[in-house]
């Protein structure tokens, strides 16, 4: 089996040590870093995402695979940066102001990284200004917002209003998610997308970035 397939299959099984070992081997063998990323690590996570959506594996399996992906990425990232290989896009994520619950947002960040995005995680209790200013500064394509409380989810509207006020809504798309949030609420506040769960959030972000 070729090295990239070894990376991909070990990643699928959540075997982080093997993924690291084969990523190192691929680098030593001068396999182009973009190929290691696309055909090894991202391909593996892509399969994991599909299995998860098909209910063939569970969330803990996805997270074990993500850890394996990160072990390979940690080795590969300095080379990707050195060679100026861009990611497929930057996404700024955070939990909305007033909310400290960040597990859901963390899961989305992990899955987005697994799909090849650069993720700038602003943490929790993030003000609308911080979301917008950081996304502009980083030239991010998408802002992802999470909320767990029905009372704090209204803060998502403020981010979207601020993007509109500053004339940025065309270039920076928005996606929202979290337990109390729905597709209907996303439409009502003018968000560009709603992520039901981490896997669907990744699909929607991919779609948003393709639309640009």
């Amino acid at each position: 089996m070729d090295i990239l397939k070894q990376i991909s299959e070990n990643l699928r099984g959540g075997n982080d040590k093997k993924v690291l070992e084969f990523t190192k081997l691929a680098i030593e063998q001068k396999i182009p870093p973009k190929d290691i990323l696309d055909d090894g690590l991202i391909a593996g996570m892509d399969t994991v995402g599909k299995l998860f959506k098909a209910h063939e594996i569970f969330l803990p399996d996805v997270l074990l695979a993500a850890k394996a992906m990160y072990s390979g990425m940690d080795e590969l990232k300095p080379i990707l940066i050195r060679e100026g290989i861009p990611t497929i896009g930057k996404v700024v994520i955070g939990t909305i102001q007033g909310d400290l619950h960040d597990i859901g947002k963390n899961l989305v960040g992990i899955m987005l990284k697994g799909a090849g995005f650069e993720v700038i995680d602003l943490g929790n209790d993030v003000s609308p200004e911080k979301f917008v200013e950081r996304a502009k500064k980083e030239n991010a394509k998408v802002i992802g917002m999470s909320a767990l409380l029905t009372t704090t989810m209204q803060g998502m509207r403020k981010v979207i209003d601020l993007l509109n006020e500053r004339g940025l809504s065309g270039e920076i798309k928005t996606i929202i998610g979290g337990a109390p949030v729905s597709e209907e609420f996303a439409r009502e506040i003018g968000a560009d997308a709603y992520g039901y769960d981490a896997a669907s959030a990744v699909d929607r972000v991919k779609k948003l970035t393709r639309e640009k």
Partner: protein
Amino acid sequence: MREIIHCSIKDIKPDVDIILKSQGVFTPPEPPEKINALLDMSMDLFGKLSIPMGIISEISISEFEVVYSGEGQNEKNTPVNEIFRRADNLALFTATLGEGISREINELFKLNEFALGCMLDSVASEGIEKVAEIAQNHFSEYLSKSGQTTPSTRIMRYSPGYCGWHISGQKKLFEFLHPEDIAISLTDSFLMQPLKSVSGVMIAGPKEIHHFEDNFPFCSKCSGHTCRERIKSLR
């Protein structure tokens, strides 16, 4: 009546089925080995790191009216606003697992131990509900012993941040309850630290008072509608 409650770990052992369900794992009779191992490790960490405590404090309807009004940011009509006025007894409560477990969850994520961090988060979320249940049982026993219950009395917990009770309501709730006695504090945005803490009001009264239709204006924006299950559980 105001009481600080100390719980033992064995009394708040989280329900494995609920934890697995929250992780999306539905595999009767046994989950895969890897997931079982994560669950065992999480339970072990939960046992070592949790310091479960709570406070309950009885409050009159007129006092609660002041607490509930909070910072004036509640929705105009809410279920709690209708329910508490018909209650027989009320008590404010808070419960926590202490700082250690929240810190550990953050550390695990920083170390890329996402699966273990996420499992521990589920275990802790279920664990803190158990602490709140113990606090509720204390209130129930207190009411029962003091002859303040009838066969139709039911107690339910309601918390700021849900169903139109604005999260800023925590401020007045904390001013009354003084959770600093068990090392819970509020952030500027009215959230509790440690994160694995809960607070709210326990409302005791005939079970009918807890029934409401989830057709308040804000209900359309809620995808959870967990109130339906809660109301159904009243027997």
